[in-house]
């Protein structure tokens, strides 16, 4: 799952050629990062069609703004950041969920029951999968993005911090909230 960003000579040359209007060179970059860009968008919007559409938009925006890309930073992180921003904007525009920020999110965490003890391993797989998908839908895009970027995309806290442009501490607290929330829901499923 982990595909660390590359900024080697080959990539620098592809970026330079793309800047000069060589769409074939840009196609190589698209092939290289498409899966993870879709993954980042999917982590936020949690809908494959929307994620693919947003990923395409991400690459088009990246192509249009290649002149603004500074080679000092990682090209992949720059791409993922565009994807995350587009996906979060998309989600907010759709208005499906209330986005919790800062203290509000912390308050929500404190409201969660402190579940301890039995694990939910014994819950039937299909039931658990269905409930987990639903639980993910209930999370805010920021919380869902953090946990899916960590668990599915395998990003480090620092990478998530770069992509979502938030402090590492925020990544940790969002991750804690998302885990606690999902675990609580799954415990309820196991208990019922």
């Amino acid at each position, binding site marked *: 799952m982990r595909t660390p960003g590359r900024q080697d000579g080959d990539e620098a040359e592809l970026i330079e050629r793309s800047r000069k209007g060589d769409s074939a060179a840009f196609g190589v970059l698209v092939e290289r990062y498409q899966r993870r860009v879709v993954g980042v968008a999917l982590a936020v919007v949690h809908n494959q069609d929307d994620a*693919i559409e947003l990923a395409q938009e991400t690459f088009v925006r990246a192509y249009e703004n290649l002149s603004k890309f500074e080679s000092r930073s990682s090209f992949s992180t720059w791409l993922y950041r565009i994807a995350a921003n587009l996906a979060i904007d998309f989600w907010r525009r759709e208005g499906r969920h209330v986005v919790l920020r800062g203290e509000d999110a912390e308050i929500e965490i404190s409201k969660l029951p402190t579940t301890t003890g039995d694990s939910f391993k014994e819950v039937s797989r299909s039931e658990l999968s269905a409930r*987990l998908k639903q639980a993910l839908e209930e999370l805010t895009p920021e919380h869902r993005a953090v946990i*899916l970027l960590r668990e599915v995309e395998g990003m480090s806290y620092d990478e998530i911090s770069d992509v979502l442009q938030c402090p590492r501490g925020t990544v940790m607290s969002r991750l804690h909230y998302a885990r606690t929330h999902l675990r609580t829901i799954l415990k309820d499923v196991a208990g019922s």
Partner: protein
Amino acid sequence: MMLGAFEDSELEPNEMQEVAFHLARCESCTGILADYSTLGRDLRSITAEPSLAGFSSAVIARVDRLPMPVFTRIARALRRQLDSVGAGLAWGGAAVAVAVVTIILMTPYAEHFANRAPQSTVLAKAEPNPAAATNPVVDAAANEPTMADNDSHADISRLESENRSVAVWSEPRRDTTVIWLPDQP
């Protein structure tokens, strides 16, 4: 929060050690940690990998349809001009090189032909002076202006008919001495 970071190996070494010691004697936290681990696996399992067939070609099609920015258009036009100027310079350079080589190769022949023509003229011009008929040694500087106007063939025939002795032509300005021997009968 520490348990999640422990699960993700995102703590400092001393913190990792601290949590590990705690887990060794806390069943509750061990259970939570096990749930986090299971949760991660479940999340990966329910996240279907989307099909990306035709994704990159769709992106490139959109990119190719983008209106080209003015700056890019100017840059491309300049690049095309530079390319054509470069080709012109290359052809020009090749032509100059061929010309130089030709000149180098032809120069000895050209000098040969160029040197032969004046000599014959000088020989022809050397004898028409009436003074040279009695005195074959002629001062070139004195004779040159008057001979320039004469017909060379006529001078030679006159010389051959009137005086068959040796003629010596000395031209100080060219640092040349010409000795002329008429055909013997």
